[in-house]
């Protein structure tokens, strides 16, 4: 199993069950976890902490919260990889992606995963990006 002891991960998601599950799994991989359930708290943590990687939900108290968090993250910590974890397509029918350079120019995430995920998918992206 991959070992990320000493690495920290910032998680922002308003689904507390998901957050709890992710924290449980990520701790097993050795991560220190920092979590928030709102965009507002997420922004504060971006300013106050220096995580090695971040995972953001898209739709929080604002529907585009995840995009804002990605931008803020890349501005504050330009080299830190960011993963968007979202059910936006199921909720709205809209599809976003990070496939083309054009898309990546405004969706400031290094990867997007559609909910619900299997944890192994997230782990794979984390291994790829770290």
């Amino acid at each position: 199993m991959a070992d990320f002891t000493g690495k920290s991960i910032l998680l922002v998601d308003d689904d507390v069950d998901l957050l709890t599950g992710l924290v449980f799994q990520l701790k097993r991989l050795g991560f220190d976890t920092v979590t928030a359930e709102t965009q507002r708290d997420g922004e504060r943590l971006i300013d106050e902490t220096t995580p090695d990687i971040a995972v953001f939900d898209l739709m929080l108290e604002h529907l585009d919260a995840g995009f804002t968090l990605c931008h803020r993250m890349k501005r504050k910590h330009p080299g830190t990889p960011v993963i968007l974890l979202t059910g936006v397509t199921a909720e709205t029918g809209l599809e976003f992606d990070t496939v083309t350079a054009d898309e990546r120019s405004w969706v400031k995430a290094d990867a997007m995963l559609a909910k619900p995920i299997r944890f192994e998918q997230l782990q794979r992206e984390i291994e790829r990006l770290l």
Partner: protein
Amino acid sequence: MIEIEVNGRTVEAEPGEMILHALQRAGVKVPTLCHIEDLAASGACRICVVEVEGRPGLVPSCAFPVAPGMKVRTHSQRAVAARQTIVELLLANHPDDCLYCIRNGNCRLQGLAEELGVRQRRYVGMKDEYKLDISSPSIVRDPSKCILCGRCVRVCEEVQAVGAIDFIGRGSQATVGTAFNEGLNVSSCVNCGQCIKACPTGALAEKTYIREVLAALQDPEMVVVAQHAPAVSVTLGELFGVAPGTDIDGVMVGALRQLGFDYVFDTSFTADLTIMEETSELIHRIQGGGALPMLTSCSPGWVKFIEEFYPEFLPNVSTCKSPQQMMGAVIKRFWAERMGIDPGRVFSVSIMPCTAKKFEAERPEMGEEGLADVDAVLTTRELAQVIRQRGLDMAAAQADTADTPFGERSTAGKIFGATGGVMEAAVRTAHYMLTGRELDDLAIPVLRGLEGRKEATVKIGPTEVGVAVVSGLGNARTLLDELRDGRRDLHFIEVMACPGGCISGGGQPIDVDLSAVRGRMQALYTLDAGGKMRTSHANASVLRLYEEFLGEPLGHKSHELLHTHYAAREEVVR
């Protein structure tokens, strides 16, 4: 036989059979929607209604048995009007976005509306709005396009014995969904995609990776490499008007080059490599007392099926990666280095008849240090889409051959595309490995054909080996239950998730009949019969790969690159 009268003409029928069967045999066309050949009638859609003299109402011909002297009118004004109304009602709550639908031009509902001349919105219904499920790496579900015919549910349950989807809710609330209506991604779905081929509308489709592939092709930094599976070249032509059973390997390779792929390799090469590894593993298990019967591991739908439903048989599964993943591994971890290319700049695309291959490529076992062995998987259908989109004229395309060193293949690797092909290739090589001689006759007819299960005892030198070939997961379940109940006469079992094998995979053309699948199978065996190199162990490029890099089958390097282990599935996070 009994006689019935159809549209004034006498037609023979078997006692007890359904009217529809007699009609089909007599060449009388009655439209169907929910009907699936060889499964019991469900009578769900009523589109096949006919008038039977003396009956007050119309009867569904799929679910109404014939009787001597019965007088049937298939296209009376009343029957046609009923069919029109059924289609109009289905359309009443169907999204009107045909132009944007993946099945535009290939939709059964659209076809019926046209056939029946539906030109007005006589019924204006509430449109059902359901969540689009894009979570699975293989299959996209759009329940708002579902017409509740139940074909996907029945194929998943009755043919594949998976049961990942079923009807949820009652009456107007009824829909097709997974357990707890969670995403397909976290369900017991094995990604085989047979539901896609069963779906008459765009409610089920493959998750497409065309954009990823096109983005890589346009990126000057990337070296884009394609591999194509054995079943694709004998199928792709059908999507361009070529008769089923035509192999267009050369033209397809030419088209891939025109699309901009820098290198094109043939997955049949790694099918040969798989045979070298898998046969060695089988011999090792038989001689060394390993877990038997050994089960093949080339079909990713089948692998997930065991992980989900029969984890106690995981030790029996061959540790060999599938040919797709072996190719992915040797491309990035051998070939790239030889070519002096940074593996991170290689974008590896595989063209597969399969939707489960998309899931397989994404598995955490299939890569190293965050570098995936295969980056994107396109189905046969998606490749055809890209070819059309880029305006390539297949009739005028220049034929070409695959690149070295992974372009050379034996016909043993090529017949992997049909159920029984892996077994036949393995028996050829096992015979050679154990006796030092080739089989007198390389063709093994008992292992061929579209039957769901074939069994044989094969004599290899002094050893008698019990083998079974199974396709369709329902058939696999039956055999696994026999093994669980103590059956001990089998040494090696080939399982393909899809009925008929890869030629009938979930990524293959939609809406074809069995004769097309037979044609594809015949094409593979014709290639084999006329092949110059018919055994995997004779593939000089495979032998060179062992000489220059891998060492020997089951050696250290092979284990690192070509083998893996699977585990029972537990879902914690959704």
